[in-house]
């Protein structure tokens, strides 16, 4: 087992990060976030016949739905070729003859990509926060910052999954297929499966464990994390009231999200070092 040289991680991370700045990836994603967030903030209540910013809780509730679709997809696209792309291009062998371990290479790649993702999330949603700030109380601002932080964690979790897929995949085509499949599973299929199981069993079997099963999906952890932090939103989600108190703790949910970040990354490192 070799010691970790953080300088090597920093060099790789710096390259990955600046690559995304230079090719305007960060700018494009930040703009997407800004535009969507502004549209939701100002036109989110248009169906009820009102236009304009109403409340931060309702805005966040709408943004949560947006972010659950968008950020996992962006993170998976960002990270799916992190390793397999280098391998397929032939540059991986060259990198691995340098004084850097495989672990440092993965951590550097992950850190750089995570930095780019976090930067665009902060810039995109932060710009909207600045625009809305005259209408926000300190408490509302706190909620909004919490939403941004959880969105970043969600991105990190899916980026971790993407890097893991990138290590396992034999080529970029397979990696992109796996990434899309992962997005479908966690964002579209997982909740449907849970809901289907709940309906089929009529809640008679293992009903109590269903809320805990949500923790097996980082997108659901993100949703729950935001739903339970907002009083107004809790009332919007009827089911929120039946959610176990133990899982309502942001620290617990944050811990689960952290596990979703560390777990796949650890698996990726383990596999890459073999």
């Amino acid at each position, binding site marked *: 087992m*070799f010691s970790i040289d953080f300088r090597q991680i920093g060099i790789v991370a710096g390259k990955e990060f600046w*690559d995304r700045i230079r090719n305007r990836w960060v700018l494009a994603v930040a703009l997407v976030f800004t535009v969507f967030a502004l549209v939701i903030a100002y036109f989110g209540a248009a169906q009820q016949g009102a236009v304009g910013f109403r409340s931060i809780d309702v805005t966040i509730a709408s943004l949560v739905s947006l972010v659950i679709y968008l950020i996992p997809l962006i993170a998976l696209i960002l990270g799916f070729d992190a390793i397999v792309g280098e391998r397929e291009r032939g540059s991986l*062998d060259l990198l691995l003859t*340098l004084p850097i371990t495989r672990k440092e290479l993965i951590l550097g790649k992950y850190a750089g990509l995570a930095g780019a993702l976090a930067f665009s999330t902060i810039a995109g949603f932060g710009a909207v926060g600045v625009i809305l700030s005259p209408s926000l109380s300190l408490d509302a601002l706190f909620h909004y910052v919490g939403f941004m932080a959880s969105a970043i964690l969600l991105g990190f979790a899916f980026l971790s999954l993407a890097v893991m897929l990138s290590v396992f995949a034999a080529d970029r085509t397979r990696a992109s297929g796996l990434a899309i499949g992962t997005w479908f599973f966690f964002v579209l299929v997982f909740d449907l499966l849970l809901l289907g199981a709940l309906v089929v069993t009529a809640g008679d079997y293992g009903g109590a464990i269903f809320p805990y099963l949500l923790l097996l999906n980082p997108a659901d952890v993100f949703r729950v994390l935001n739903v339970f932090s907002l009083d107004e939103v809790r009332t919007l989600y009827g089911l929120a009231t039946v959610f176990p108190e133990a899982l309502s703790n942001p620290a617990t949910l944050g811990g689960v999200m952290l596990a979703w970040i560390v777990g796949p990354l650890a698996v990726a490192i383990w596999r890459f070092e073999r």
Partner: protein
Amino acid sequence: MASTIVEARGVTKDFGSIQAVKGVDLSIAPGELFGLIGHNGAGKSTLFKMMLGLIPLTSGTIHLDGEPITGPRFRETRRKIGYLPENVVLYDNLTGLETLYFFADLKAVPRRECAALLDKVGLTAAAGRRVREYSKGMRQRLGFAQALLGTPRLLFLDEPTTGLDPGAIRDFYRILRELKGEGVTMVLTSHILAEIQERVDRLAIMEGGQIRATGTVQALREAMNLPLTLEIAGGAGLREQVSRALEGLAIDSIEESGNMLHIRLSRDAKMPALTRLATLGDTLRDLHVREPSLEDVFFGYRA
């Protein structure tokens, strides 16, 4: 300083049921320009990758400058080596200079070395251009500059002249000669045997995962006892006079093309033949002794 800079002992590599490398022993001395040749699938790429620490050995040991490449002092060992992969792929979005900066940082080499290296490989004018705008040959030269970062003691060059034009190939080997003069050891693979036969100090021929022969090109020729060719230019009646002079010697064949004779004869018959031909005086206008090419040697070992 170790007496060998590359030391492989009993190196074996299995991929499932396929044994790609079978008990290879190899020693390369400091300052040598060593060639590793073999057809596709002979095991040379696998051996190359094991020497670089890219794939683990099934059994055996490899030491570079006295240290295992994957040992606890791997960072120091890797700083001593340079590697130019075949068809080097670098980062399209970086400029040539930025590419070198990236690799220099990872090798803990001062960035100030980079501009000089670009100059050495003839890329100064393209230093600020993105790699995506580089031709194949320019990428290869940039890859070579990358391999030279940190003044390595040991260079691994995998098909290094792929994509280079004749002028660049000449420049490339000129740099190799300079490096050799500085005591750098180089291990290179190439399919262009004519290109390396006069340039390597020693070489190893790989076949079926094993090293079939190791030595200088001349030693391998002699060990194979491949026939030599005498190329003789002369006037009218040359063939008859030469045939008469060489009667009784082990001559494989005599072929005529224009006013040239090509005589294939065994190595043992060379000196007697030359002695007899000298008696023909002005009948001969020119005479060359052509040794078997490395290609002849290579195919001789494969046969």
